């Protein structure tokens, strides 16, 4: 979340990928850094270590959402 916000502050379109377990922390970080509406997309938890097949499935499920968020943030 913090990385996404830091990139956005540099004017680079960005979207943070946040797993559901860390969603509340993402909200906290976005609030504390003054960008409560910073673009973010929720992933299932966990993703790390779940294997290539699952990661591909997760990526397919959120790809359109990520693109939409990037397009919105670059407007």
């Amino acid at each position, binding site marked *: 979340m913090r990385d996404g916000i830091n990139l956005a502050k540099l004017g680079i379109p960005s979207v943070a990928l946040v797993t559901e377990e*860390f969603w509340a922390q993402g909200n906290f970080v976005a609030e504390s850094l003054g960008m409560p509406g910073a673009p973010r997309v929720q992933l299932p938890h966990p993703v790390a270590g779940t294997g290539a097949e699952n990661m591909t499935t997760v990526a397919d499920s959120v790809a359109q959402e990520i693109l939409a968020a990037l397009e919105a943030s670059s407007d």
Partner: protein
Amino acid sequence: MTNTLSARDEEAALEELHRLRCTDGLPVVIPTAERVNRMVLASGLEADMMLGTMGPGHGIATVEKVAIAAVMAGCLPDYMPVVIAAVKAVIDPDFDLTEMQATTHCTAPLIIVNGPARHTCGPIASGTGALGPGHRANATIGRALRLTMINIGKARPGSSDMALLGHPGKFTFCLAEDEESSPFTPLHVSRGFDAGDSVVTVLGSEAPHSVIYAGDGDDPNSYKSLLELLAMGLANPPSNNGTLTGGCATVVLNPEHSAILHGAGLTREDIAQELYQRSFVEASIVKRLFSQFAGPDPQDRMAFKGPEQILILQAGGSGVYSMVMPSWCVGAHANSAVSVKVEADMFCEIPGLSGD
């Protein structure tokens, strides 16, 4: 002036502080204006003096807010200069407080106190059971720092403090070096301070891991066995140091183990160098257990980037146990240790008020 809450009595105030998640889960001393003012007065500093901001919530740490934490923790006013120095240490950008508070690792700030403040701002225990219960200064100074991290830094479990389990040192984690019985130069002197300075050194740390060694007076190479065992504890393969390399870690030598190493002619710097060279994860283990990091031709993986990353001090009672504390070792500054001089000159002793 900090906003104040009101309650019908101290019992109700305590419940309100728990409800607001302003405590560490244990009862606190209610930070009434009178108690906080006394703590501020003892610091000799202005109440609204800003020490810096504390992440991840980016709250501003004023002397008054730190005093509130010190009151809540149960500190005596005498302890304030050490609490202030500890807060300054974690605020230092090299400490990476924001990242440290938010990580899923269990890391907690270990406070090591050197110099005269061990006595004038305490006593801060350095001997038997120094990291255990029963030592008021140790218990409440560490707790005060934690309460600043909760209430100024806004680290709360599950939403901004993401430690998956944590460890008990997240309640309090403070000790002094036993300079009087140590054969080595004090830790703070090795970090560039004068022996007469009082210094707080803070670093993120795992819980202590025990290292048992009985020594062998008939074996002139006994010290090498001790060094190897300490290094094995530091380079514990599943620790972050063993897995990721780098990040300051701590070795707390008991008096016997200090004597063994000193008897072999080793200085503090020699010990750090010897431990650095011995602290690695063997290539065969890297290959077998860490295939995702290993690459096609795994080598021995060092646990540290240099001997200066291994902090050594003497503390604890006599016996066969020393302690090693691996660390988180992540963040922009890779778990740096930060040392801050205790400014006790400003301290204002208040006759008749201390401890009331």
